[in-house]
């Protein structure tokens, strides 16, 4: 096992150099998991799940401090930091740092009457692209006030997604709690926008929906009541399904890639074979490249769909 393990550390390192990614992580963790389970198993659950410790590659495992849970009514809320919280904070810090510094650089360039160059220019171009091509066309006219929220959403999700591909990192968006929180914020933004733009009556129309053009008379009245009774639950489910889909889509996409990579690497230890190891590594590299793409894609999709829902709500019925 030692010779075998060393070989794998080397392969993992090479892969890690080629790709800022997880085989090295899987490799790091494999012996521990194997020792723990007494077999050739990788603890996938442990990798994608949240925990109160952080592994720093080649350094060790760092235990995060724990606070006593707070009891609010019947709810128990544990505010002590977890692995995902740490990486979420790091993502937020990086996003804040990148964009505040870029904004300074851009403002400086603007003062000299020139467009920004280099990294700041790239950030500006990305921001502009999301604003012009994703947000404004889907929200419709006067969508400018949603731009800060949606831009923040995009870059925050993107940073969290990408952290999962950094050796030693974890994907906070691979945690249903995090995506659910983001989806709840999106839900609130969508519904509050509906209330503000449609007015109380218009907004209630999006819940208690009845189609126009029903026949008059007593028959029409009965039809109205029946349709209202049928359509209202559907409308309510529709409202809740949107953020639910947002949360699950992001969570599932970010989790599945990691599970796949870990499973592929796990094959090597299951079969104890160099051939399988080589094949699995090639496949895992491909999956990681795909994951890099998915990290961008899912941030884009979350942002795009949120703005589509806001746009739909603004011109509802």
């Amino acid at each position, binding site marked *: 096992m030692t010779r075998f393990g060393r070989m794998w550390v080397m392969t993992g390192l090479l892969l890690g150099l080629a790709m800022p990614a997880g085989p090295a992580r899987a490799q790091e963790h494999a012996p521990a998991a194997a020792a723990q389970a007494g077999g*050739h198993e990788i603890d996938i659950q442990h990798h994608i799940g949240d925990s109160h410790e952080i592994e720093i590659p080649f350094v060790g495992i760092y235990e995060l401090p724990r606070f006593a849970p707070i009891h609010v009514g019947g709810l128990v809320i544990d505010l002590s930091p977890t692995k995902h919280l740490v990486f979420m904070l790091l993502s937020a810090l990086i996003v804040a740092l990148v964009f505040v510094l870029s904004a300074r650089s851009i403002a400086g360039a603007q003062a000299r009457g020139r467009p920004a160059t280099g990294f700041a220019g790239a950030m500006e171009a990305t921001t502009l692209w999301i604003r012009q091509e994703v947000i404004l066309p889907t929200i419709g006219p006067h969508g400018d006030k949603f731009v800060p929220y949606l831009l923040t959403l995009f870059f925050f999700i993107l940073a969290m997604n990408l952290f999962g591909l950094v050796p030693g990192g974890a994907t906070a968006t691979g945690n249903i709690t995090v995506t659910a929180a983001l989806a*709840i914020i999106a839900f609130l933004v969508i519904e509050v926008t509906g209330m503000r733009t449609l007015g109380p009556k218009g907004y209630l129309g999006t819940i208690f929906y009845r189609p126009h053009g029903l026949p008059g008379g007593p028959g029409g009245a009965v039809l109205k009541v029946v349709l209202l009774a049928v359509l209202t639950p559907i409308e309510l489910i529709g409202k809740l399904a949107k953020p639910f889909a947002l949360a699950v889509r992001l969570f599932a996409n970010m989790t599945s890639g990691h599970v796949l990579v870990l499973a592929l690497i796990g094959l090597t230890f299951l079969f104890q074979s160099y051939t399988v190891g080589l094949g699995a590594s090639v496949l895992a590299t491909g999956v990681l490249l795909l994951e890099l793409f998915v990290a961008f894609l899912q941030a884009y999709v979350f942002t795009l769909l949120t703005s589509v829902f806001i746009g739909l709500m603004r011109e509802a019925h």
Partner: protein
Amino acid sequence: MVHALMLALQEEHTSGPLTVEGGLMLWTVFIFILLLLVLKRFAWPAILGAVEAREQALEQQLAEAERSRTEAAALLAEHKRLVADAKGQAHGIIVDARQLAEKERAAAMEKTKQEQQEFLARARREIDVERDRAIADLRREAVDLSLAAASKLIGERVGTDTDRKLVMDYLATLDGGR
């Protein structure tokens, strides 16, 4: 492998991937809102403002370019019109000058012809007068000569008026046959 996955899933975890944790959710909302506020305050206005300012500057420049273009086009049209006018005028002047010259020439020709005619007529008249005078002179001379010859022939002086008249009458009959 399926066995391994099953084992992993069966393992007891306080926080599995599908457990929703209230604490983490609160943290997520808090961090997101904080990030949104920071970026909204320090990043987005500067970035989007710069872009908008540049957009406006570009639009202004475009509008200016458009205006200069139309101005230039108008100027060009004006210029073309002026050139065409000048050409037309020059052409008119040339045509006029040619016509004038033609007229002048015709007039001069006419005048010359007339003068020539007059000159000819006068010459003819003078010739006629001269001829008449010459004829008259010749006639008188002829009368005198014939009378002298006759007197010589008859040895007497013939020179009376009656004689003279006689000769004259004879010559008058000749006149018709000339």
